[in-house]
């Protein structure tokens, strides 16, 4: 599963942010900051780092880059393993990323930012694996809490908060999930705030308070924002809203909403596609249309299985639904895939 928080937060032109007073360090080394949607990196030396962004000195000027736009930073003095690990992580190869990180000589005296990056990618890789059921969620969450407590001003802060929230939600610890997701609501970038609101709404929905969730999601969907990421978040909120509707007996409305979203779907957006089709599936189920629900979940299973959380949901539903339409053998196949691909995540 790609970690959404890393790439979600495209800046709005109106976004202002201020550097925290706790500037982490100035560096004379050349660092390369890679932004989403930008081909070349910004090269300069970091002058300031905060949870909301970094300041880079390029020539005689200082450029501020919000954390929501940062895809990755390759620091001057990076160990090679860390450089490789970042790319592996971005590609979803979490186990390989961890292998690279383990090989890094921790005894060396790296820059503080590098040490934080090492710790962050280790935690993030473990967290993604834990969400797929291949590691203990509680243990990894403990590592994450220590990390975020020790680095409240890292530009990875919101990413860590997001992951901690995901871990908490996966074990139905809704209070903790709300706490961590809630931290995103305090971000400077509007898109990060929206993400926070969206995620808290999802928690609310998972707690069973569908009406409250719908209201919160409607707020997200109503935000006036023109950035790509912002628009995307609005659609995500709508998809979640469709699910909430289906859970609260408004299957027809949910279905209508899901269909609208499909009509605008960018099929290369795996997360969006998976969640929209799952929403469609939930809506069909609420309406008693088992065939329609199966078809919807099959979309996720056969075409968007790269989105782990959604794929798990789709597989679970297929396990339940296939026997009802006379295909127990297909349910068994889905069950087998669930167990083999996401052991321990299916409970």
């Amino acid at each position, binding site marked *: 599963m790609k970690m959404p928080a890393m790439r979600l937060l495209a800046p709005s032109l109106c976004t202002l942010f201020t550097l925290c007073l706790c500037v982490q360090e100035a560096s004379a080394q050349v660092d390369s900051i890679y932004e989403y949607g930008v081909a070349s990196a910004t090269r300069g030396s970091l002058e300031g780092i905060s949870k909301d962004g970094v300041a880079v000195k390029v020539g005689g000027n200082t450029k501020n880059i919000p954390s929501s736009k940062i895809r990755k930073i390759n620091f001057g003095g990076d160990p090679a393993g860390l450089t490789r690990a970042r790319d592996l992580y971005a590609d979803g190869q979490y186990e390989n990323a961890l292998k690279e990180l383990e090989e890094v000589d921790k005894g060396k005296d790296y820059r503080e930012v590098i040490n934080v990056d090492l710790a962050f990618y280790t935690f993030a890789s473990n967290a993604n694996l834990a969400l797929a059921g291949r590691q203990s969620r509680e243990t990894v969450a403990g590592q994450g809490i220590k990390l975020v407590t020790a680095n409240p001003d890292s530009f990875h802060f919101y990413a860590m908060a997001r992951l901690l929230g995901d871990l908490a939600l996966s074990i139905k610890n809704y209070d903790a999930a709300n706490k961590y997701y809630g931290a995103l609501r305090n971000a400077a970038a509007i898109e990060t705030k929206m993400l926070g609101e969206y995620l808290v709404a999802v928690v609310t929905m998972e707690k069973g308070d569908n009406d409250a969730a719908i209201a919160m999601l409607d707020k997200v969907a109503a935000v006036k924002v023109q950035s790509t990421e912002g628009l995307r978040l609005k659609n995500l909120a709508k998809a979640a809203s469709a699910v909430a509707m289906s859970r609260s007996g408004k299957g027809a409305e949910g279905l209508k909403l899901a269909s609208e979203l*499909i009509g*605008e*779907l960018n099929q290369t957006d795996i997360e969006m596609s998976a969640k929209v089709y799952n929403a469609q599936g939930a809506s069909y189920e609420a309406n008693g249309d088992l065939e*329609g629900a199966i*078809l919807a979940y099959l979309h996720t299973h056969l*075409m968007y299985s790269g989105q782990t959380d959604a794929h798990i949901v789709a597989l679970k539903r297929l396990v339940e639904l296939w026997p009802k339409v006379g295909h127990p053998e297909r349910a068994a196949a889905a069950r087998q895939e669930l167990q083999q691909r996401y*052991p321990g995540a299916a409970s």
Partner: protein
Amino acid sequence: MTDFTRLHCPQHTGVGRKPLLGLLFGGVQPIALIAVMIASSGMVSSSLRSHAGEPAQRFMGQLRNTGYFNTALTYLDRLGDYPGVDPDFVSAKELERANIFFDMAVAARSSAPRNEALANAETALSEFLGKGDHPRQSEARLQLGKLQMLRASQLLAGEPSAEDKVSARESYLNSAKTYDSVVASLRPKLEAMRGANINTQQEPEKARLREQYRFEYMNSQYLAADALKLAAKTFDDPAKEGKAQLDDALARFENVNKKYGMYPVGANAHVPMGEVYELMGDSGKAVDQYLKMLEEAEVDALRESKYLASAGISRMKLQEDPKKYQEAIDRVSGFIRGIRLNERGLPAVQKFRVDVAKAYIAKSKDESLKKGEISRAKSQARELLRDASSVPGPHIDDAKAMLADLGIETEAEALPSAEPPENFDDGLAKAETIFTTIDGLQDAVKLMKEQDAEGNKQQITDLEKKIGDSYVVAIENLRMALSMIRTDTDVQSINKARHLLSYGLFQVKRYRDAVVVGSFLSRAAPGTDVGLKGGLMALQSIQNLLGEVPSDSNAGLLKQLETLGNYLAKTWPDDPNALRAQGLQVQLMLEKDDFPAAEALVMNMDAGNERGRFKRLLGMLYWNESIGKRRDGDAEAADKLIEKSKAMLTEGLAEYKSSLQPAQVVQAGSTLARLLVMRKDYNKALEVLDNETYGPLTLLEGMDEQDPAAAGNIYMAVFKSLVGKMLADPDPSQYLDRMESTMEKLQEVYNAPESQARLASTYRSIAQDFSEQLDAASAARKATLVTVFRTLLDRVRKATSNPATLRWAGETQLNLGVSLMGPGEMVATGEAAKLIGQASEALKGMDDQSVATRYQLGRAYRLTGKWKDALDTYDEILKEKPSTLEVQIEAARTYYGWGMDLKKTNPKFAAGAFTASLGQTNKKRESVWGWQKISQRTSQQMSQSETLEKAFYDSRYHVFACLYQMGVCRKSTKEIKQAKDLILNLASRRPELGGPQQKAKYDALLKACQKELKEQPVGLPK
């Protein structure tokens, strides 16, 4: 009949459906890139486009690929529910529907659903084609053509009537017309596109369409030709009645091959061309085409055709007279092992298997071959046919009939099946109940067999069938149960189910499946008892499979064995059972006589009982090998093997820790002791024999049952070691007690009447050994030993009445006496005479006057100068057994000795004795051959053994010696000259003259002859 769907169907090219990747380059594509040029109907460009809305085409492809055909049909019906579906896709809905029905027909395992699916496909196609022009019209026509082909093949299935054949022919011809219409419709489109100069980058849609049309254009030409060929085959005599179609098909294929040889469709054309030539009866050209197919590039798209070509070569070679089965096998057998996992179900592969099996069957019928070759050919045929029989298809009946001829029964009835369990626990419980029932049935069978196997035969057969069926049902239950595992299912229960499954599969001899399940269990539950059981079940299954598969084809199994063995040994290092796999590997190496590999494996094993066991085994095998080498005359190799044997046995015995498998340890210890005795290392030999942990004597005591031969060897080794030590020790009498007790034990071991021969043989060996050792001792030593041994023999005589023992005692005493005689002495005197005289009395007094006893008695008489008694004794034996060489030699020697005895006092009688010794006059004792005949007989056999060679030279010497003595006694030079000439003649032909000792005797005799002839006594030429 070719199943064209797999070979030719645009969506079934090669080994499965793959999406059209897009032919991204214009112009001729080299063969090397054929691998990327795979097409599938209906998977056109929109899958590559990223656009908003429902990705219908892509989703449809996924559903079809997964085999969810009914769901795909539902999806098509519900397309309207999805916003943003590509209008092109919507407009081609019926074509998509036809494609789904076509997939269903191909996947169907029986004719009824297949026919229904085909009928539905045709309806959908007709509906689509009826709508008018569409970019995918050509694709639809191709499908229609395909459908017509399928219909025809359906009509020809089973035993078609004449009408069916006519209808099938029409369908094929219609199909050819359909394909021709595709070609006709595409030609102008392609020409227009050629002129349009389409830029791939800027107009990707048009470029894609152009490539699609090109593909369909080429393919349609091929398919039209194929349809004509198949139409011709519907005639009873295709070469005559279908000539027009065959000629037309051939011309078309040649055209396709010539124009598109760089594409799969062109390269693949060799196979149908071969088939056309086959139908025309031109086998030379047919083989030529098949060979050309095999020579095409090694790419996936051509593999199916290569299988068909191989099958064709096999058929053609078997049509020759005599059948050139070996040429066929040599050409195509390489493909057998190369069948990929995903090719095993292909019709082309089954055809290949059946046709190549025929070549192996033809080979197995060649009586001029060795048994092993015939048996291997049958095994190979069997394997091919068994694999083919496991895949449904038109070849099944042939394959099963051929298997039955080879002697394998195929199932005549359907196997029982189980009701699906409700959940995992239910399935496991059902299976456990069935296993309990099976236990009861097996007990019943056992009881019936014990009571009256013949009388209860039918009941036993019925019960055994029931047991077999019950296993099948249990396996079904377990399989279904395991498919119902949930995340909360108890892991122990899951592993239990897996274990039961592997056990059940083993019981019904589905060894390959048992290997898979057992291996999986061992890896899923490492370190646990049930995991080990799974691994051992897999191991036993591999072992059984190795017994079935010919050794030149078992490389894959050996690899599996190695991997499993290493894993089990690593995961359960303390469990001896886990090391069985490694042991099995070693055994297999040994069966192939690959000692270095076996030794390497053994040395790599972890220290412990298993390694010790194999070291001991290797040690014994090296010992056996050394005996063989020595027999072959390769003393150097034999000695090296002896050293290796000694090292392995010593190490192996040292690693023995427990009382597991004592019999093998006893054998190893005994072998080492005998080896050490052979090396005259008597101290070490006794140390081994007496060792408290692994010593054979120690272990023998603890064994309830002893193998007499093994025990006899041990006691023989003990005795010989004691003799050896005695000969070297200043106080030899200290060994007497143990020697006596060893003799007693030997007699106990060979107590049974049928063991007496064995006992006698053991004594002979001891006596010979003793005699050799005694000969080597100094005179003073001999005197001491004789005294000590006499005491032993007295004790033994007093203690036993066993004839073999008494005979041995007599012989040993006799040998003691002989050992005291001087060199060249023919008659014993003094102490020697006393001993030999006592021996003869003892032998004469025995109740058992077997040949062996009388032989020794005769010796005793001879050595004490009782010539007549000796000759009478030998004559008696030789009347019974005239060809007993030792006795003939003794008789001739007796005459000679008598002659020497009479020479001084009565030369005339002496000459007579020498003449009789020579064998020239034996009126009284006609049974005695004499030296002349002995040397003739041994000269014919001297290459067989060292003993016979020695006997030859000795007998030749005595021939010359007799002649010399006759000449001396008669004062005649004639015989002496004759002797001299014969010696020189022999020396010129065989200069070694039996070795240095014997040569010295010849030399001395020659000199004596020369002296008597008043010549210079120079002796043998230097």
